[in-house]
């Protein structure tokens, strides 16, 4: 499995994905200029823009790497040669997933360092009233990465049942959007404002709320931007949620993939 992780990483790097990220990351250079338009919160705006840029790049990575990784292997017939080796389907899938997840972490780290430089530069020119909590920023980027790793696990699940890349790619995007609003929908449904809705609709929505991944919990941007105290308990719970949910997705994926026929 370790070798599959290594091979996957090598593949991503050799496909010049990293260079692509670096080109996109050039946008970091414009962040201080844009942020200086802010009247009262240049640093906060710099952090906002940096974190959003990172988040955006990681989203693209997870959708395209996660959604096409298995599909490409099957489409290009790599699976015939690789799965003919004494390697269980499960370790193959986990290796592929591990490599992709690791790449997301590497990309997040590199982008995080770039973001730190930009924020440090911005705040040295326009000192901010709020203290910059670097630890919160690191945690924010880390949880962002975790969120996208969860999304990748989801993309892998879709890849194991699909023969084309449409389902994994578009399904992953749809899941990202749904997972982002599920908390709000849940809260709306359990508020007096939703009295007029039919009970069936409410129950369906509540059921979906428990099934669909909840990405809202992973968003720590507000804490990082305004240096608010982090909810330690919540973070612990979110981490546990991450582990359990990813574990679930991967075990379902591997059992499907193990049964899948390589035609």
């Amino acid at each position, binding site marked *: 499995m370790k070798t599959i992780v290594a091979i996957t990483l090598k*593949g991503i790097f050799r496909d010049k994905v990293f260079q692509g990220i670096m080109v996109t990351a050039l946008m970091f250079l414009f962040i201080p200029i844009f942020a200086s338009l802010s009247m009262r919160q240049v640093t906060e705006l710099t952090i906002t823009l940096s974190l959003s840029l990172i988040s955006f790049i990681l989203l693209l990575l997870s959708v395209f790497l996660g959604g096409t990784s298995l599909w490409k292997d099957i489409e290009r017939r790599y699976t*015939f040669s*690789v799965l003919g080796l*004494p390697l269980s389907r499960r370790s193959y899938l986990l290796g592929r997933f591990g490599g992709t997840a690791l790449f997301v972490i590497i990309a997040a780290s590199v982008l995080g360092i770039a973001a730190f430089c930009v924020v440090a530069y911005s705040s040295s020119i326009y000192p901010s009233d709020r203290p910059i909590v670097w630890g919160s920023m690191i945690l924010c980027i880390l949880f962002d990465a975790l969120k996208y790793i969860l999304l990748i696990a989801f993309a892998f699940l879709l890849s194991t049942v699909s023969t084309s890349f449409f389902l994994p790619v578009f399904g992953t995007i749809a899941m990202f959007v749904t997972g982002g609003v599920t908390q709000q929908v849940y809260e709306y449904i359990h508020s007096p404002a939703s009295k007029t809705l039919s009970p069936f609709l409410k129950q369906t929505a509540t059921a979906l709320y428990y099934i669909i991944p909840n990405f809202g919990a992973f968003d720590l941007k507000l804490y990082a931007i305004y240096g608010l105290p982090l909810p330690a308990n919540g973070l612990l719970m979110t981490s546990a949620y991450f582990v359990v949910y990813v574990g679930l997705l991967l075990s379902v994926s591997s059992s499907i993939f193990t049964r899948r026929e390589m035609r």
Partner: protein
Amino acid sequence: MNAIETVSLSKQFTGKKRARVEALKQLDLQVAPGEVFGFLGPNGAGKSTTIKLIMGLLRPTSGSASIMGMDVAQAASRRVVGFLPENPAFYDYLSAEEYIRFVGSQFNMDASLLNRRTEEVLKRLDLWEARKRQMRGYSKGMVQRVGLAQTLVHDPEVYILDEPMSGLDPIGRALVKEIILDLKKRGKCVFFSTHITDDVEKVCDRVGVIVQGQLRALDSVENIMRSGIEGYLVQTRQHVGNQAALQEFKAIRSNEQFVEYLVPVAQFQEFMALVGESSVEITLLETKRRDLEAFFLDIVENGKSA
């Protein structure tokens, strides 16, 4: 214990609109260790299907298969196999050397052995010059060579090769034959599919012919060759001895120097006795047989009509 064994192995594909294809029907096959087995069949006969089933890439509709006594559903059954898929494709962002090393590492080879074996197989398959280049720049034949190299690197007991000669130039084909003969000498089991009867004739111990998913013939090459003897071509010198004594055998050719007869196997003894009595001088004796190609074509024709 058989190196490869299938027990009423069947595979049915369900295509779109529930169209069913019976790609393989009740295949019973045993291949012994140290045996070179040729798997012959026309296009779409079910050769690749069989091989994919044996490699665990497809799940049988019914029946089972095992390698060295281990069921193919287990990944461990592939520990003793070198597998070459049909029209292989390998991670094209890797170089041949990296890929061979990757394969070696999957078989838990230790580093120094892997180094040595990698160099050996790359040189043997004439990939040494290109070993550092990414495989996306390789020609079809080069990829095929990588495919063969990666079956050899860990020196397994069983080789399962789906059309090992395809895409290779004559030098490459000769090389593959040489490699297979070499493996045979070292007591390895080789199971390979092909359309080319000549290859089978030269290297195989046994051959199986599959047509439309059904095994139509299974025999040793020796037997087939022997049963294929149609008669003997006998050439005698003209005007020597009493040619008239051989009158009941019709001459197929006759000129100033020679007279040629085609003698069926059953009458050969009688013919030779007459030759002795009439002091006819034999200048050439040749066995006349149908080759494997004809044998194969016959089976395919019968199979189709059946």
